[in-house]
Each structure stands twice: as structure tokens, then as C-alpha cells.
């Protein structure tokens, strides 16, 4: 009863919409992040989104716009500095550390340091304003359109690089496009779970989905579904227990689903394979 009333409130509806957009985009990009071994790149981007958010707050009082700029800058830096896979992790590590230090410096100039820092690092779901919601919507729609447009060649280049290159798939352009898409997604996710915990929506659902199935489309669908359960479920739970930040529930749910996937995933996968093989024999 209380929950239903809470969901009537504008701030709760804003939050729910924000969670849903973010969950769909994170669930969509997650499988690609894992396939391309870019978990650390995502983490680096979100840390630098913190720096961007601090700068945005200080200069224009707009943290999300600053976060987007920060993430895009990192995307460009990774695209140019960390071209070779062996270089990438170390470049990201260096950029991440330097950027985070800068962010702390910027925030120390800001009034109300503590709250601002907590909100950026751990999310500020109930503080989503109308304009931020519109930004999130634009980001979400852009990400979905971009991923749908490049889905097949990106998948090809990610699982089967040599043959994709032979078939004329432009890996370089795709990888830069994907970095841009990541930057947008990370900015959105940072709003919900905070820059420190972006991986709980960008990686965990896809990592769990991979344990349940081997079909690429099923993995994409499951990844989105798990992200939705974690984000929306986390929000609803925090409406029930207002003293605890939604971030805690979101990360808790996605972590729990991942643990479950590690325990029962292999059995489900094996059953699927056996069923498919039987089907082939019958055919």
C-alpha cells in the first residue's frame, strides 16, 4: 500500500524511468564489454565521469553534463592511447588515477563537498531533475539506436576478429563508435548507481547472462532483463527502506543474480545443450 503511494510521487516516477532507461542501455552493452575485454575501460570511464561531474558542478552546477564530457574525453584517450590491447590496461590505469586526483581537487573548491561527492560516487537517484531526466532519455535513445545499428558487425568483430576483417568489417571505426556509446551509457549509469558502482549494471548482468545461455540473442535479452530487475527492483526496495541508498539494493541484487548464475548456470546450460542435440537427432 505504502509502496503504491510512493510510486505516485513525481520524484519516484522520475527515478523509476531513469532506472529503466539505464538498465536497458547497460544490459545491451554489457555482453559486448565482456566479449571485448573492456571491463576495466568501463571502470576507468566511470571514474573520470566523477572528475567531469565535479567540474560540471563547479562550473555550471550541472553534474551529469560534466560527467558525460569526462567519459567522452576518456573514450577518446583510450581510443588513441590504448590502441594495442597490451597497452590498454596500463594507459587506463594511468588516466584513471590522474583524473580521479583532479576530481578530488575540483570538488574541494565546491561548497557542500561531502554531499556532492557522495552523490556522484554512489548515485543520486531521487535527485533526478526534469532536465536530467531528459538528458538521460536522450542518452538512452542514442545508445539504443547506435547499438542496434552496429550490433551485427560489432559482434562479428568481437568474436571472430580475423574473419570479420577479411569480410570488410571496419574494426577501427566500430571500436571508436563503441567507446563513444560506452561513454554515454556510463554517464547514465553513474546517475543511478554512482560512478564507483557503474560495473554493477554494466558488467554483472551480462556476466550472469553468459552463464545461463550460449545463444547471443538470448544473452542480450537476459542481460537486459537482469539489469532491469536489479535497477527497478533496487529502486522499489529503497522506497520501502528509505534510510538505505538505492545503490545498495541495485548492486546487491545484481551481485546476487551473478552468484546464482555461477551456481546453477552450468546445469541449465548443459540441459539446453542436451535438449538441442536431441532435437537435432529427432529432426
Amino acid at each position: 500500500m505504502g509502496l503504491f503511494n510512493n510510486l505516485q510521487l513525481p520524484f519516484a516516477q522520475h527515478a523509476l524511468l531513469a532506472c529503466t532507461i539505464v538498465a536497458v542501455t547497460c544490459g545491451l552493452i554489457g555482453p559486448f564489454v565482456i566479449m571485448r575485454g573492456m571491463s576495466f575501460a568501463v571502470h576507468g570511464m566511470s571514474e573520470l565521469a566523477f572528475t567531469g561531474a565535479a567540474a560540471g558542478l563547479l562550473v555550471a552546477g550541472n553534474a551529469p553534463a560534466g560527467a558525460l564530457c569526462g567519459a567522452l574525453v576518456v573514450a577518446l584517450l583510450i581510443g588513441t592511447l590504448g590502441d594495442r590491447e597490451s597497452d590498454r590496461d596500463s594507459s587506463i590505469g594511468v588516466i584513471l588515477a590522474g583524473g580521479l586526483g583532479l576530481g578530488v581537487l575540483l570538488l574541494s573548491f565546491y561548497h557542500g563537498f561531502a554531499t556532492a561527492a557522495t552523490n556522484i560516487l554512489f548515485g543520486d537517484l531521487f535527485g533526478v531533475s526534469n532536465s536530467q531526466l531528459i538528458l538521460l532519455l536522450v542518452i538512452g535513445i542514442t545508445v539504443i539506436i547506435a547499438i542496434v545499428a552496429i550490433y551485427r558487425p560489432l559482434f562479428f568483430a568481437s568474436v571472430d576478429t580475423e574473419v570479420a576483417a577479411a569480410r570488410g568489417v571496419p574494426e577501427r571505426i566500430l571500436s571508436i563508435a563503441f567507446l563513444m556509446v560506452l561513454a554515454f551509457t556510463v554517464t547514465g549509469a553513474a546517475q543511478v548507481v554512482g560512478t564507483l558502482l557503474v560495473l554493477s549494471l554494466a558488467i554483472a548482468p551480462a556476466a550472469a547472462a553468459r552463464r545461463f545461455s550460449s545463444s547471443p540473442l538470448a544473452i542480450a535479452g537476459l542481460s537486459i532483463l537482469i539489469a532491469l530487475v536489479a535497477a527497478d527492483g533496487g529502486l522499489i526496495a529503497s522506497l520501502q527502506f528509505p534510510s538505505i541508498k538505492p545503490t545498495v539494493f541495485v548492486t546487491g541484487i545484481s551481485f546476487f543474480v551473478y552468484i546464482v548464475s555461477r551456481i546453477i548456470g552450468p546445469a541449465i546450460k548443459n540441459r539446453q545443450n542436451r535438449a538441442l542435440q536431441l532435437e537435432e537427432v529427432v529432426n
Partner: protein
Amino acid sequence: MLRNQRAWRAGTDGGLHGDEVVRLDNATLSFGRHRLWDSLTFSLKKGEFLAVLGPNGAGKTTLLKVLLGLQPLSSGKVEVLNRAPRRGSSKIGYIPQQRKFDSQSPVRGRDLVRLGIDGHRPGVPLPAVTTRSRVDAAIRSVGAETYANAPLGKLSGGEQQRLRIAQAVAGDPAILLCDEPLLSLDPASQDAVASLIDARRVAAGTAVVFVTHEINPVLPYVDSVVYLVDGQWAVGTPEQVFTSERLSELYGIPVVAARLGDRIEVVTSHGGALMDLMDEEKCRLLSAMENEGHRGPV
């Protein structure tokens, strides 16, 4: 240079070009000061099986990259299907050097095969009836029906390689480029994979360029051979290239090539010891010892 080179050139230059699908004319490729091959000249006709041999680093894979349009020549001319090679031609099927798929790889054999048909197109791979039947036909043609829906990472090297062939032929190519497709396979799988590739050649008139360390598994199918060694090359039929004289010239050390039944054995005779010529390291060792005046079994 080498006598048969000229004979081969004379043979192709005099003939008709209508059936030619690949043609290299004085193709030279250098990286910095290192010359990979010099004035390489050969042609390949529709339905022909060409084996490309040579030690590691002789430029076998790079030759495939040239034909794929991924690597420009330093000088000379290359034509694929009567035009300069271009990236992403749908007329070329490609089987890359075998790299086993990770056991958690989120892709099944069926998905890999489908990528060979429409993986380069934008959009989402939605289920489609015509694509599905093409995928099924390609899977049937390599006998992979029973494991095509299993995760690729769980399959054996031989099974993965069959699906690679299905992927390469699913796009109905006129030329099949294979980069060491037999590497790290057991002998039975080697025979199966080689005969599947040849079956495609016979059924569809597909020209095959087959890079390999080892001629024997493909010897029954081979029409011609390109043998690359350290900037030198020889082109011709297996009988023309695999002679003691030609190979000694190529490697710069005494080599004996002999046909034993349906196999060709290539060995250096040195103090009574025999060794496999394909092993570059041993070759180097041998010639180093020769220079130092050592004698005896290696």
C-alpha cells in the same frame, strides 16, 4: 633464378586468362629492409587447388592478406577475379589460422556460420527463414549437424574447424583462402578437413589457396604449389617443385626430396641423419653447424 619459374610463367602467359581467378605478376613485398618475396608470379584458375608452403616468417599468411585486400604490395601487380583485391569481397571465403574459442565464448557453431553470410551487414541478426536454410545447408555440407547448436568453446579443434569451413562456404565464395587449417589437428581430423575443403572445390569449382606447413595431408588434391623460403620462391606442380635440386636451391643447403608411395618426404642428408625440413629452427641450427665445420648426426 629458378628454372621452373620461367617454365611456369611461359605456360600461363601463353594460355587463356578467362578462367583465372588469382593472378600475381612480379609481386614484391618488403617491410623496411626485409624483403618478404621478390617478383612473385603465379596464377590460379577456377577449381584449382594451390598449396602455399614454406617456413614460418616466409610470408605465407601475408600472401593471403594481399589477396584479401588487407595488405598492399610494394611493387608489382595482383588481380583477384580480374580486378585489384578489395576488402570484404563476398566472393572470397576465409579460414583463419586456428585459434580455439574460449570455453565461455557466447557463440554457437550456428552463429559463427551465420556471421559468414551476413555478419558484415549493419543491424541486428533477427531470425530469417532464407538465412536459416543457408546456414543449415552449410552445416550439413561439413557434417556438423549434431553439434552446431552447442557452444563453440566446448567443441574439439576438429569440430571447430569444420564449422569454420561451413562459415567460409556459407557465403558461396569463388575463392577459398585457408591459413594453416590443419594446424594442431589430429591426423584423422586433418584428413577430414582437407577432404571437406576439396569436396567444396569439386562441387562448386571454388579455387582453393591452402597455406600449410605440411604437403602430405593435401597432396592428393594439390594442382600446384607456391614454395616460399626467405625471399626466394618456386612455383609449379608438386612434381616440379618437390625435387632435390629445386629445394636445395631454395633452402641453400643440400636437400633430398623423394616420393614414397602417396607421400613426399623432404629431408636433408647430413652425416646419415635425417630431419624434417619444415622445421626452420633445425635448419638454422644445421647451417650454423655446417659453417662451423661440425659433422655428425643432428
